[in-house]
C-alpha cells in the first residue's frame, strides 16, 4: 500500500574550492554517499551538527543543487537536474521551508504576492484564481484574509514561518523539505508550528524531510531518523530503534548533550552539586 515518494541512492556532493595565490585547489566532501527512502505521508528526520552536510543534502533533495554522484528518485522517476534541468512539474512536487523566517521572505513583497508567486511562475492560472487559492491557503495555516495585503515586517516570527509554509504548499507538493523550521522560534510558538505541520501532513498526505539538531523535536515528529556526521549517515533507522538503542558513538554523544528537563535529572544534578 505504501508508495515511496523519495529515494536516494549513494548520494555524493563535493564542492571544489579554487586555489588562491598561495593555496592549491581543494575538494570538500560535503555528503559522502547517503542512501534513504521515505514513504508517502511519513517523516524522515535528518539530525546532525553544523557542517555535517544536512543542509547540503536538503538542497539536493529540493532540486536546488545537483548531486555529484548517486541517484535521486522522486515519485519513482529518476531526477538528474545536472543533465536534464528541472521541469515545472518536478518543481511543483518538491518545496522547501527555510530556517530563518526573517530572511526567507522578501521585505518589499506583500503576503498575497508571496503566496501567488509560485503559481505565477509554475502555472498559467489567472490572477483571480491565484488570489482565491492564496486566501484559502492563508486560512489553512491559521492566518486570516486581512493578512493578504500586509508586508512581512508586520508579522511575528511564528506567523512568518506559517507564511513560509503556506508558500511552500501553494503548488500542492508531495514532498516538503523543512530545513530547521522551528529552531528560530520560541517554545510555545514552536509547539504551534509543529502542530500545524502535523495537521497539514494528515490533510494533504504530505511527506516531510525534517532537518533539525533538536532531538526532542525530532523524537516528537519523525517516523524515521538519520543521524549525519561529517557527511556520512552514521545511523539510520526507525525513530524507536534510534532513540531506544543508539548504535553509533556519535549518536550517543548527541543524546548525552541534549539538556534534560525532567525532575529526576534535576535532582541528580543538585545532589552532585551538594557533594562537590
Amino acid at each position, binding site marked *: 500500500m505504501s508508495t515511496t515518494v523519495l529515494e536516494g541512492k549513494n548520494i555524493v556532493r563535493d564542492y571544489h574550492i579554487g586555489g588562491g595565490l598561495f593555496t592549491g585547489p581543494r575538494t570538500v566532501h560535503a555528503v559522502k554517499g547517503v542512501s534513504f527512502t521515505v514513504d508517502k505521508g511519513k517523516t524522515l528526520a535528518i539530525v546532525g*551538527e553544523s557542517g555535517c552536510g544536512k543542509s547540503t543534502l536538503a538542497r539536493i533533495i529540493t532540486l536546488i543543487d545537483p548531486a555529484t554522484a548517486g541517484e535521486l528518485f522522486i515519485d519513482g522517476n529518476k531526477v538528474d537536474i545536472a543533465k536534464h534541468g528541472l521541469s515545472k512539474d518536478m518543481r511543483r512536487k518538491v518545496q522547501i521551508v527555510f530556517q530563518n523566517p526573517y530572511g526567507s521572505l522578501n521585505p518589499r513583497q506583500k503576503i498575497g504576492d508571496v503566496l501567488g508567486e509560485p503559481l505565477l511562475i509554475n502555472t498559467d492560472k489567472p490572477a483571480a484564481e491565484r488570489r482565491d487559492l492564496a486566501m484559502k491557503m492563508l486560512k489553512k495555516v491559521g492566518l486570516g484574509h486581512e493578512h493578504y495585503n500586509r508586508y512581512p515586517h508586520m508579522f511575528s516570527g511564528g506567523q512568518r514561518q506559517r507564511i513560509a509554509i503556506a508558500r511552500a504548499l501553494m503548488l500542492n507538493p508531495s514532498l516538503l523539505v523543512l530545513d530547521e523550521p522551528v529552531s528560530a522560534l520560541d517554545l510555545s510558538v514552536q509547539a504551534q508550528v509543529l502542530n500545524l505541520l*502535523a495537521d497539514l501532513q494528515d490533510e494533504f498526505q504530505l511527506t516531510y524531510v525534517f532537518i533539525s539538531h533538536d532531538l*526532542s523535536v525530532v523524537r516528537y515528529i519523525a517516523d524515521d531518523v538519520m543521524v549525519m556526521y561529517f557527511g556520512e549517515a552514521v545511523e539510520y533507522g526507525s525513530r524507536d530503534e534510534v532513540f531506544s538503542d543508539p548504535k553509533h558513538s556519535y549518536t550517543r554523544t548527541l543524546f548525552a*548533550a541534549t539538556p534534560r528537563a525532567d*525532575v529526576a535529572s534535576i535532582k541528580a544534578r*543538585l545532589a552532585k552539586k551538594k557533594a562537590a
Partner: protein
Amino acid sequence: MSLLEIKNLTVSFDTAAGPFMAVQGIDLAIEPREVLAIVGESGSGKSVAMLAVMGLLPNTATVKADRMAFDGVDLLELSPSERRKIVGKDISMIFQEPIASLNPCFTVGFQIEEVLRFHMGMDRAQRRARAIELMKLVGIADPEERLSSFPHQMSGGQCQRVMIAIAIACNPKLLIADEPTTALDVTIQKQILDLLVSLQAKYGMGLIMITHNMGVVAETADRVIVQYKGRKMEEADVLSLFESPKSNYTRALLSALPENAVGDRLPTVSDMMFEPAPSAAGAAL
C-alpha cells in the same frame, strides 16, 4: 546582603505610538555564588531588564526603579563614568551571537587585553600573560597562537569561549549570560554550559542565565524566575518549579516541551490560557 537587588524595575521605550512598557515592575535579587535563571519568550522583557542593569539601553528607554543596587552601591545614583568602572569589571555580560559581539577588525587577543588595560591598568607583558591564562581557562587550545586570530577565523563555539574569557577577565562578582548557547549546536551548547557552571563554582561568581530553553534551566539553575510580557509570573527554586509549577504560564511552557507531548498534539501556551490584553497581562494571570 544580596549581590544584586532590584525593586520594582520598569523600562519603557518611547515609540511613535506612545510609550511601550517592556518591563513592568520586576523585583529580583541574586545572592553571591548563586545561579539564577530568567526564563521567558521573546518580548517578555528578560534581556531588557538585564540591559537596564548594565546601562546599555538606548536613549529612547526610560529606566525607573525603587531600588537597583549592586553589592551595596546604588546604580541609579552613579554618574556614567563611575558606572563604567563597575560595568565590565564587577558585572559583565555575554550575549547570544558570539560572532556578532566580537569586533571583526581586531584580533581576539587585542579584545581580551582591552578590558585588562581599561579596568586593571596592567602593562603589556602582564596583559599578555593574563590573556593567555584566560584563554587556557576557557579551554582554547594553543592560546599563544590563537591570541592573534581574528573572530572570523574561529568557530561559533570558540568565539563564545573568547566572549566568556573577556567577561571573566577582571574576576567579576556577577556574570550575566544572555542566551549564551542559543546560536550553538547541542554538543557545543553542553560544553559552554559546563564551562560557565564550572567557572561560576570556581570563582564564586553570581550567574544570571537568561534563556528560553527549559532544558538549559534544568541543567544549570539554582533558582528560576519566569517572565511573561514584562511581568514576573513565578519565582521558585529549580526543583519545585519543575515538580509543581504554580502559575498557569509556567505549566503551559513546560507542557509545550516536545518531550512532554501526550498523544500526537502538543499543548500550546494559548491552549492553556487566554490572550490577555497587553496592559493587564500580569494581573489577568
